[in-house]
């Protein structure tokens, strides 16, 4: 059995491919920043950053190959916690002038 089959997600080929995609995505972020997209730019930038992080988490950090429930839960958990913190904070910040 080839080593990369014994250890799921551990093949050099996969890593190299992921790396290429990461570089391309970085390039995309860079070009989008140059375009006049107003409020969309930050959303696109965050979406691309999220995708890059997802690739690092799943392939470099092998989350994709973890079988146990706890490993599949922790990243969504921390995202949910962060989201809640930032959304409730903005419930204050974005409405200081009163509700519209």
């Amino acid at each position, binding site marked *: 059995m080839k080593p990369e089959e014994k250890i799921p997600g551990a093949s050099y080929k996969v890593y190299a491919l992921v790396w290429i995609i990461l570089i391309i995505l970085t390039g995309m972020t860079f070009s989008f920043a140059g375009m006049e997209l107003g409020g969309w730019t930050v959303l696109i930038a965050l979406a691309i950053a999220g995708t890059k992080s997802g690739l690092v988490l799943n392939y470099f950090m092998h989350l994709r190959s973890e079988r146990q429930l706890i490993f599949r839960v922790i990243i969504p958990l921390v995202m949910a*916690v962060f989201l809640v*913190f930032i959304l*409730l*904070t903005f*419930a*204050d*910040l*974005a409405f200081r002038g009163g*509700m519209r």
Partner: protein
Amino acid sequence: MIATRATESVHPKTSFYHEPGRYRGILSWILTVDHKRIGLLYFIFVIAFFFSGVVLGFFMRLEMIAPGGAIMKPQTYNSLFTLHGIIMIFLVVIPAIPTVFGNFFLPIQIGARDVAFPRINLLSWWLYISGAVIVALSIFTGEGPPDTGWTFYAPYSLRTTVNVPLAVFGVFILGMSSILTGINLVTTTHRLRAPGMTWKRLPLFLWAIYATSWVQILATPVIGITMVLIFLERFFGVGVFDPTKGGDPILYQHMFWIYSHPATYIMILPAMGIVSDVVPVFARKKIFGYMAIALSGMAIAAVGSLVWGHHMFVSGQSDFANLLFSLLTFLVAVPSAIKVFNWVATLHKGSIVLEPPLLFCLGFIFLFSVGGLTGLIQGALAPNVHLHDTYWIPGHFHYIIFGGMGFGLFAAFHYWFPKMFGRMYHRKTAKIAWVIMFVGFNVFYFSMLLLGWEGMPRRYYDYLPQFRTLHLTATFGSWILIAGLIIMFANLFRGLFKGEKAEDNPWNAATLEWQIASPPPTENFQNIPVIQSGPYDFKEFAKNG
């Protein structure tokens, strides 16, 4: 009584006290990796810090016995209540139950030999001690201890010339200790359960510790970074909370309370876990609604992380946020109420054995309920405008933290004392101490609720003559309470040296720690047990006993 079912007949001489490990003498303690020794190391210092917190409180109440200055200057009073808060919250109430009883009993209750990361456990203790030393340094060096309140609100904390940087650095270190403990206990619960110890057979104490540990991991980093920012602000003037540089002090409050509200659940959940474990034993009855209690703890941890803005209703926060946070605050009362209901339902038609552990649990149920109900009153927006920053607030939180967590902690002391030390304290004295404490507590803190209702501001050194009687009453109550505390601790201390030798299972409980020797051997179990019954299966237990 029913014969104990100690399946491990280990010679008492081989308790963990007698097996020092790699080192000798004091090093065998401060360099230990045995979770039981680490638990006791925390025990000693938690109690020491509790005493210092009580002493600070004693002098605060002495000063407040009459209007005007009595025994100290206003600056001293400000420092006293700041230190009282820092010590009690960060050095006592947040760590106490997880680090003392979580460390000591989690591995045993799941049938393991130790926690997942014994050396990290030791590191946690060293960080705890280091944090305490740094906080102590802030008292005795430079321009003296912080006077900001334990909440370190900006911009005052950025301007006041006293030792804020040292104190916040100490808090940061203590936060690291807390996070590592949380990581250790979660991993231990996931990985080291003995065969047959399913999640549904875990003692409810462990469900509570589990929920608590998640909050420690996820919430503590936020205060970590906030303390770092205060520190950086003081030295580099970064500007993040400084209005003169565009910073928003309300954002400081958000960052602070995003941790510090969940921290109150770090404080209370483990104590609730103790009540859940102790009540069935002394009602001789299975807990009512096991899954409801287990899951309500997780719900408290989750919903409790959404309510922090209720500390900020009058801070200048938006109306919309106020509404949201008030609504969420009312929601979080529900899982707590479920627990109270289930404990009472467990007691109902049980065969009550009124021993000290149960007495303290009953105290918890009553005092926590008072605290919780007052919480609802201040969680409503309109009353909060009048009650915020009055004595109502410390009245409320002392009912919850001291009446709740404190009595839960004392219940744990009295419940697990024979297991940890192999001796029994004098039970009648413990009950007398309880009565005195209960009376003193209510005289003291109910007076505070009344003072707040009447409009007495908190953190004030002086006050109008109309508040005189209630302040006098509160101070008297504090003396009665302290008398009760002294009797309680003296009784336990005496029991340590002169108490009768305890059996392995004096309470006839069914959880695993009672099936091994008192005190336990180093490796906890000769053979890792195979679990076949639940933690409150007294009938099963009697059958096989």
